[in-house]
């Protein structure tokens, strides 16, 4: 059973890593952020499976932490994207 879970974890990691091709191809930055979002979710799945298969203590807390931060970078990105051009402002040199 542990081997099956580890193999599943590996498959998930490799699958979501293939999604990183989106970082390469874009075309927009928002597509690139989506690839990391998928990667984060995949990492959580991987951690859950690894925690169950190997029993190293604390991995479930690790998965919990990553789950909490899963969307943080994406949300930060969208927040900057949504800024009005004048809000983006560059300090005028006066």
């Amino acid at each position: 059973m542990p081997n099956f879970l580890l193999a599943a974890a590996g498959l998930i990691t490799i699958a979501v890593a293939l999604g990183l091709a989106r970082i390469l191809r874009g075309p927009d930055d928002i597509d690139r952020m989506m690839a990391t979002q998928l990667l984060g979710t995949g990492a959580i799945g991987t951690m859950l499976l690894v925690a169950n298969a190997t029993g190293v203590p604390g991995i479930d807390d690790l998965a919990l932490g990553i789950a909490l931060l899963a969307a943080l970078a994406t949300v930060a990105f969208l927040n900057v994207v949504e800024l009005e051009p004048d809000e983006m402002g560059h300090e005028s040199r006066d």
Partner: protein
Amino acid sequence: MSLAIDAFTIICVAAGVFFYVAGTIGLIRFPDSLSRLHALTKADNLGLGLVALGLLPRASNFPDAFKIIMIWVLVLLSGASAAQMIGRALRRGRR
């Protein structure tokens, strides 16, 4: 009994892996950002959900099982909000 649990785990985890793979393929192959967003949310919700469901009967005590459910709920919460924000940004042409 334990055989039934193992079978349940294998089926659920395998289905979860399937949705992760499907999400990835969608993210790579779909032609525009909105449909790629659609593929992404499948992996978020169903992929992780099925993996969590499959691991649930293997949790040794209640707190562990609760943690697994919490992880899925958190990902649902932040994933759904992020997807909503991505959709809005795309509609407004901000990318």
